[in-house]
């Protein structure tokens, strides 16, 4: 294994980790403040760092840091008669697959090391670094594989807590997530057929050359958004946690850092689902009017360095990611919780037939054209 490959891969992994941990802190803040504003409250704004008699609160941005410190110092309580090993393993099983799944998400265009400080020639040479940790030939399926493994975490958490509310929450989580995995997987098959590939980087390339996926597969977009929200167990699909009926469900008996890890996993899943939506439906890092060689928009042409173009692409991806996350938050704080039977009915009676219909119509259109 040569040195540049190793170093660049390590840098990319570090970038992903720093990115999702930063997003975690900021999303916690945004979620609280946004919820407060939607509900006509102020939200947490007081926790701050005292400097020279002045409270540095940054509009509440210090609150997540205070939460992290509190979680670290809190007692790690394990209920009596609980299965201690499984109780400790469950948060890890829930969170590690989500982090691993980020490996296949391309977060920018390819970087040609030789041409970083010049305009990209028509036939670039030299080493190329794709801004994606792993290019594997099963592509998007890897995200599903990892997402599916994460289900076990919440089920085991519910079982090992030795608490009836937790058990009910774990059962609900397992049933709901297995049901929605089917519809979630089938909702994207139309996209696979359209892009004619499973590799995410090729899907992004197809969208750059043709048109963004959301315009050709709107039903798949809505199904995926709904299904991923259910898979993340967020409102309106949060019956596994439903604090009003089963007081937190499978996270009930968790405290301190283990609880924080569950909550972190939820935000990681949120970022992952939003990133998948960006690369599958919103053209990934594509910005209309910006080519690999520079700006080319309505007759206005301005060549740019290749390195600058790659940096702009990265920024465009992050802006799209933030916009999708904003949409997810607005959904989260607008729609009230569904009942469990409504959730099951939505999955099996509406989403699954719609996904199959979408596959059928896409197939017919592709064959006809």
């Amino acid at each position, binding site marked *: 294994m040569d040195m540049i490959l190793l170093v660049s891969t390590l840098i990319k992994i570090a970038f992903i980790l720093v990115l999702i941990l930063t997003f975690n802190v900021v999303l916690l803040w945004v979620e609280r403040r946004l919820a407060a504003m939607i509900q006509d409250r102020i939200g947490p704004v007081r926790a701050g760092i005292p400097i020279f008699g002045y409270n540095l609160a940054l509009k509440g941005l210090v609150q997540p840091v205070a939460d992290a410190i509190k979680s670290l110092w809190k007692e790690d309580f394990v209920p009596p008669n609980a299965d201690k090993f499984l109780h400790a393993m469950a948060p890890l099983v829930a969170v590690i697959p989500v982090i691993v799944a980020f490996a296949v998400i391309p977060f920018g265009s390819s970087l040609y090391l030789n041409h970083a400080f010049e305009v990209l020639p028509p036939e670039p040479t030299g080493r190329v670094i794709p801004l994606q940790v792993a290019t594997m030939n*099963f592509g998007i399926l890897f995200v599903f594989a990892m997402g599916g493994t994460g289900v076990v975490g919440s*089920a085991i958490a519910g079982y090992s807590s030795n608490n009836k509310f937790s058990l009910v929450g774990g059962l609900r989580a*397992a049933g709901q997530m*297995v049901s929605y995995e089917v519809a979630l997987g089938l909702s994207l098959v139309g996209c696979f057929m359209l892009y004619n590939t499973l590799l995410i980087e090729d899907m992004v390339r197809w969208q750059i050359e043709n048109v963004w996926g959301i315009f050709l597969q709107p039903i798949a977009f809505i199904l995926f958004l709904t299904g991923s929200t259910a898979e993340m167990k967020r409102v309106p699909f949060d019956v596994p946690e439903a604090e009003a009926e089963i007081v937190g469900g499978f996270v009930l008996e968790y405290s301190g850092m283990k609880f924080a890890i569950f909550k972190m996993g939820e935000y990681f899943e949120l970022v992952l689902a939003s990133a998948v939506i960006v690369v599958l439906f919103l053209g990934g890092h594509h910005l209309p009017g910006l080519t690999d060689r520079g700006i080319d928009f309505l007759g206005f042409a301005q060549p740019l360095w290749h390195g600058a173009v790659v940096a702009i692409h990265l920024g465009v991806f992050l802006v799209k990611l933030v916009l999708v996350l904003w949409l997810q938050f607005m959904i989260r704080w607008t729609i009230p919780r569904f009942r469990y039977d409504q959730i099951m009915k939505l999955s099996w009676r509406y989403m699954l037939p719609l996904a199959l219909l979408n596959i059928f119509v896409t197939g017919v259109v592709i064959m006809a054209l």
Partner: protein
Amino acid sequence: MSIAAISFFFVCGAVAIASALITVTQNNPIRAAFSLLAHIIALAGLFIGLQGHFLAVIQLIIYAGVVVVLFIFTIMYIGPVPKPESAGRPSFAKLFSIAGMVVVTGAVTYAALGYSPALKGLNTCPEAVAECGQFGGVEAFSAALFRGGVVPFELISILLTVAVVGAIMVARGRLIYREKPRRKKQELSIENNR
């Protein structure tokens, strides 16, 4: 094979064997299911080592994501963990299964060491052959499924549908055919007023 590939194989193989042993020896069913999950993930790693990328992902989606979850789901429904049997004299069945395990392990080891003529034909994938790397990929798999075996595949899916419908019928009994007893209007109105 490079050193990285060999060490990957040995790590995955060791985890697979250890977790499989834990799965069959563990008394607590949830822990057994959990180590089955570890076994499945290690097995997926072995498939990746053999260039069976698609099989590895399907293994994770179907077995880790659905089958293990349904196992855990069922175990959680059944309820409290049964008490393990008291360790008395080993029964005939136990001795027999241990003997069988030893025989099978010996036979597989013997075959794998290359003394069996039946396994002489198995080769690892040489890196020079391009088709060989495609063997377990998505394209090769779908070509085999939808060009070679599409009729058996569809027949099996019909068979599975019939089995699912039959299972539901058996579970529900004949109750669904029985007409609901008609209630008088008076009773209904009383019920509605409650």
